[in-house]
């Protein structure tokens, strides 16, 4: 039986964050479907917001899991999340409008089995293991689906596989999905890994999570110039850059709040050589 390492609970309960993340992420992914309904692409930026909801939830899930001391480092949980999520997400893209729901269900099944393996077969015996791995797999699937919607304006298989200049210039054909995989991986691994410790505060970690996602989403918005129209890509870029600047300033403000002291370090001034 493991002992919880972190005593600090605090902040919003995990169940609330989970509900907010799951519903918010699904709603935002579905809002990108307005592209298909309105025959436009300007709603692609909702994909970035879907990833924000997903990874804010995911980083708190990693906190819940890793506060038991899994022994392999925080990033391993994020890698497993995206690794199982990408498998579920790609299968789900075949199901048209139902894709986000199918992604959640398939990722939930894969995650539950992986959680059972880790908890029982490998005898980790961590009370939240099965639940956390399940949640993380769903987060991974929604993250990639959000990034796919942000980059291409769609989350179904055929548009993701066929680009403007044939199959090889598509989201999957050009392996942009591998870039999305790593951008999502960085965003989900980093927040708890960077803020853990006795001075951990939930709001600071979640703000960092949002900041990491927006930073990754800026990259995907730039990539989206290759797939969606100029107008839609510029809107995505503006939304993600504004989101990043806002969350970054908020994160700095929260860091100043939690820091013992804040010294505005300046670069060392080289003495003038006469």
């Amino acid at each position, binding site marked *: *039986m*493991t*002992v919880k*390492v*972190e005593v600090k609970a605090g902040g919003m309960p995990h169940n609330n964050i989970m509900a907010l993340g799951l519903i918010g992420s699904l709603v935002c992914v579905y809002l990108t479907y307005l592209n298909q309904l309105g025959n436009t692409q300007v709603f692609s930026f909702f994909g970035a917001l879907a990833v924000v909801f997903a990874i804010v939830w995911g980083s708190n899930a990693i906190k819940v899991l*890793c*506060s*038991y*001391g*899994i*022994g*392999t*480092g*925080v*990033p*391993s*949980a*994020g*890698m*497993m999340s995206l*690794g*199982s*999520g*990408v*498998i*579920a997400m*790609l*299968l789900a893209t075949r199901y048209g409008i139902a894709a986000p729901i199918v992604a959640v269900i*398939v990722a939930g*099944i*894969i995650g539950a*089995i*992986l959680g*059972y*393996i*880790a908890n*029982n*077969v*490998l*005898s*980790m*015996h*961590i009370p939240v293991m099965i639940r956390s791995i399940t949640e993380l797999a769903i987060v991974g699937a929604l993250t990639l689906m959000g990034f796919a919607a942000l980059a291409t304006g769609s989350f179904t*298989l*055929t548009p993701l*596989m066929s680009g403007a200049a*044939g*199959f*090889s210039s*598509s989201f*999957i*054909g*050009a*392996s942009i*999905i*591998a870039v999305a*995989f790593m951008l999502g991986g960085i965003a989900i691994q980093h927040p708890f890994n960077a803020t*853990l*410790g*006795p001075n951990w505060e939930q709001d600071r970690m979640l703000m960092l999570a949002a900041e990491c996602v927006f930073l990754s989403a800026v990259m995907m918005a730039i990539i989206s110039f290759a797939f969606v129209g100029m107008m839609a890509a510029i809107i995505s870029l503006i939304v993600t850059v504004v989101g990043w600047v806002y969350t970054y300033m908020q994160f700095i403000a929260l860091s100043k709040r939690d820091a013992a002291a804040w010294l505005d370090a300046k670069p060392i001034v080289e003495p003038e050589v006469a």
Partner: protein
Amino acid sequence: MTAIGAKPAAGAQMEPVPMAIGLILTLIIIAAAFVLTGSSMAVALVGIIVGGLLIGFGVHFVPVGGAPAAMGQAPGIATGVAMLAAGAGLAGLFGGAWAAELGFAVAIAGGAIGGGLMMAITCMMVTLIYVYGMGIPCASGKVAKDPISGDTQTEFKSQGTEGHGLPFSSYVGGVIGGILGGAGGTLIYLELLHIYEDKLPVILNAGIPAEVKTVAVSLAGIFAIGMFLVNAVLAAYNITGTTEGPADPKFKRFPRDIVASALASAVCGIVAIMIVL
């Protein structure tokens, strides 16, 4: 308290009931693949499972040191298994994918050599940094004599540490792990690539199958990466983060991971196959 520094609680004991459930589930999934999709898909699924087993078994050889190794308090490469898997395993996967057109055996060998070479370079640079950068000798904390070279270890081990640096057997273990991981990742990639090259033109209504080849390569590659990471992290959970390589007593836990990798690969593999059904 960092998560990597916390003492993990996973015991060394085998649990017969969950392991039996895991094996039965694996067999059910293979049987379901056989009934639903035919023998060729079932054979491909078995190939994917074998690839997953190679990855999981290979990770047990890799000397993962984690944060204690970075401080010179434990032997091994000073990072987590997720990083080592992503580095060495994917190098192997790229090596194998490059050779995929040269035939099955050449591609597997290319993947194995790619993974092994990456680990050999990693281990050599790590040893250089340990010895000439940090000024610590390589000494195992788990064995008195190196099982391969026969060198004695205890004289070189600092008090209060579990050993430090990268002992010879850990070096060899790392290379073996890289070879197994690279071969396993390439095997998964090849099995999926054959399926996708057959089936994707039908799904996408592409007149010329060559047009969808890039999609098939990319799809098989990203699935292989996903399965590689899942198997590597499960193996890391089995050894609870840090190991010294084959000389470590934790190495004896590998039967648990055989079951775990088989079930995880079967679940992920059947999902990866279902995308083209």
